[in-house]
């Protein structure tokens, strides 16, 4: 073991510690091999594979309708956006134009998913820095979204609402009313998040200047989503390559230039406001029409390569399909946001304390099944 000398008087020795795969702060089965000197982090080595299910390999076996179901199990917190990514990829390949109604509903559901995901992240973020009440505040609001989803398609988390060619069912008659109720409710509750956690002195001390990530590093590590935007890297796919009905709405891209944990935190809080704004713009005029277009029972993609990217709650999700013209993809690759975001954990955590590692890891908003597909 390497021995370092501090002030010529005290000797300290580095040691290893296994954080995970069963650890409260790793939110699942991520294993971190930490090299620590006292409380200071010297090295972080993420070890993956504890929840690997070969989703990409399974996609080569399944038909395109079935693949949509597998994507739910990747980033389960933004499952609906994952579904949308595959559906968009397939629709683009088949050159199907889905009705306006479908586009609007997909966008609304997607933004609600984003709010729900950020809600859960906020609750867990508080727990990671030791404020246990945040979790229950967040779940009070998230529950309303889940109820809306349950009424819409029967599922609360893994929704499978999108299918290639449209939606599985039409929206429930109560949908518009309940979404409006939620927006009114959440507009009064989101400021509470700031009073409880954001403005807390201890919280700010824990977050500001911790887990620094410069814009250059964010780009070279392939960071996306709120992690990239917290460092001033404008990477919102919804702005750069609008899909579904996102080209019809106006919203601001949440952007901070500080690059610390607090910037990433603020980006997500602002994104909740922006998502609410998007839903508000669309909810009043959902166009009439069909909720799906007829597709063949067996979808065969033309020969070629197809790529579609969407902005999930965690960042840029890419779906890359290589088709040989059969009913299964020859190869399907997901570019998942969590994987790239995890790769910069060592970069931002080294030099900090154990508490800093937990706090900055929480701001990366990792969902392990998304990293380990």
């Amino acid at each position, binding site marked *: 073991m390497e021995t370092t000398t501090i002030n010529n008087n005290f000797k300290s020795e580095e*040691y290893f*510690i296994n954080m995970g795969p069963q*650890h*409260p*702060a790793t939110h699942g089965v991520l294993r971190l091999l930490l090299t620590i000197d006292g*409380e200071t982090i010297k090295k972080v080595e993420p070890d993956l594979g504890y929840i690997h299910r070969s989703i990409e390999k399974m996609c080569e076996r399944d038909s395109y309708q079935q693949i949509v179901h597998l994507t739910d199990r990747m980033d389960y917190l933004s499952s609906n956006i994952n579904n949308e990514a595959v559906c968009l990829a397939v629709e683009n390949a088949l050159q199907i134009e889905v009705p306006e109604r479908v586009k609007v509903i997909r966008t609304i559901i997607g933004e609600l998913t984003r709010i729900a995901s950020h809600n859960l992240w906020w609750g867990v973020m*508080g*727990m*990671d*820095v*030791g*404020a*246990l*009440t945040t*979790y*229950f*505040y967040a779940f*009070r609001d998230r529950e309303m979204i889940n109820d809306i989803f349950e009424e819409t398609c029967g599922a609360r988390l893994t929704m499978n609402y999108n299918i290639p060619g449209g939606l599985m069912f039409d929206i429930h008659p109560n949908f518009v009313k309940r979404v409006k109720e939620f927006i009114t409710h959440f507009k009064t509750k989101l400021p509470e998040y700031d009073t*409880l*956690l954001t403005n*807390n002195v*201890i*919280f700010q*001390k*824990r977050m500001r200047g911790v887990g620094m990530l410069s814009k250059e590093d964010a780009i070279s590590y392939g960071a996306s989503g709120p992690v990239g935007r917290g460092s001033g890297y404008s990477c919102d796919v919804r702005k750069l390559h609008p899909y579904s009905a996102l080209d019809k709405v106006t919203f601001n891209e949440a952007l901070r230039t500080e690059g610390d944990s607090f910037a990433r935190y603020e980006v997500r809080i602002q994104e909740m406001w922006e998502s609410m704004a998007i839903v508000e713009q669309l909810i009043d005029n959902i166009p009439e029409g069909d909720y799906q277009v007829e597709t063949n029972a067996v979808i065969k993609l033309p020969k070629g390569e197809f790529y579609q990217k969407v902005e999930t709650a965690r960042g840029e999700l890419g779906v890359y399909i290589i088709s040989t013209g059969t009913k299964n993809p020859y190869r399907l690759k997901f570019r998942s946001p969590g994987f790239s975001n995890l790769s910069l954990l060592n970069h931002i955590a080294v030099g900090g*304390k*154990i*508490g*800093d590692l*937990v706090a900055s890891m929480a701001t990366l908003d990792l969902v392990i099944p998304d990293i380990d597909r």
Partner: protein
Amino acid sequence: MNLSLSITKNIHDWLFNMMPETLASLVEMTLIALIYLTIFAVIGLFLVLLERKVAAWFQLRIGPNRVGYHGILQTMADALKLVSKELTGTVNADKFLYNLAPYFVIITALMALAVLPFSLEFQAFDINIGIFFLIAISSIGVIGILLAGWSSNNKFALIGAMRSGVQTISYELSVGLSLLTMILITGTLQLSEIVEVQRNGWLIVQGHIPAVFAFMIYMISGTAETNRAPFDLVEAESELGAGFHTEYSGMKFAYFFLAEFVNMFIIASIATTIFFGAWLSPFGITESLPWLGVFWFLGKTLILMFLMMWFRWTFPRLRIDQLLTLEWKYLLPLNLMNIVLMALIVWLNLTIQF
């Protein structure tokens, strides 16, 4: 030393008439010990339930409400479960120290309970160095935590224990100095006399500005002493799993758990005794009914404990270096200045007395 309890004067006389003096003393000590053990258990169980209920109120939940009327027996059931659980341990643990550690923690908590003035002459052990004794005892408790972390042969437990050592050594200073500030007014360390001094007004009123400062410093460092949030780095769940008691199960874990809550009670009781007149009623409204003292004492303590629970369920946790910065760079200098201020006020007779 005076070991007799005045409220049990009759029992005392009766025992000494019945049997030889040595035997009578022994029986009496056993009886008092049993009474205090019961108080200890009841306080522990009640506080665990209270904490869970308070947490539920803060967190938009209902809290335990299945066992007994409104969940009153919930902690009883929990304790029963913990007693009946198998005691597991790690193979490579230092068995002797591993088994010894919980007793250190729980015995010191119990000893501190003995000097608290619950009511007029309801005090098992009224020594003339009461405050000194409390401070000394509370610093022994950390040895138990250090032993637990060291002996269980677990790195998470070790980090937790080391944090605890650092934290307790630092914040003990503030606890001691803030109490010392108040001792300048009372001029005595004996708890019963400190209470008597407050018949002219609670010390927080008598000492006005520096007393309020001392109280705030005491509450902050007291919370740190009990290892509760926002200073719960010792068992920081999101960082260290369970901290120093990671490897403990069943009743041994329960000892740590119980001791934490009783320590919270002790910290709140000391604050009640030193700052808020212990069992004295506000403005002497129940002066003629001295037996109500227990009610006042527990009432004030309960309010302070609620304050500590409020901290816990609102604030995020500090980082280890911020914890030390707070103590050594802010609280300690403030405390020293506060002592000078208090000395001046006492010297110039600027205290408020009714």
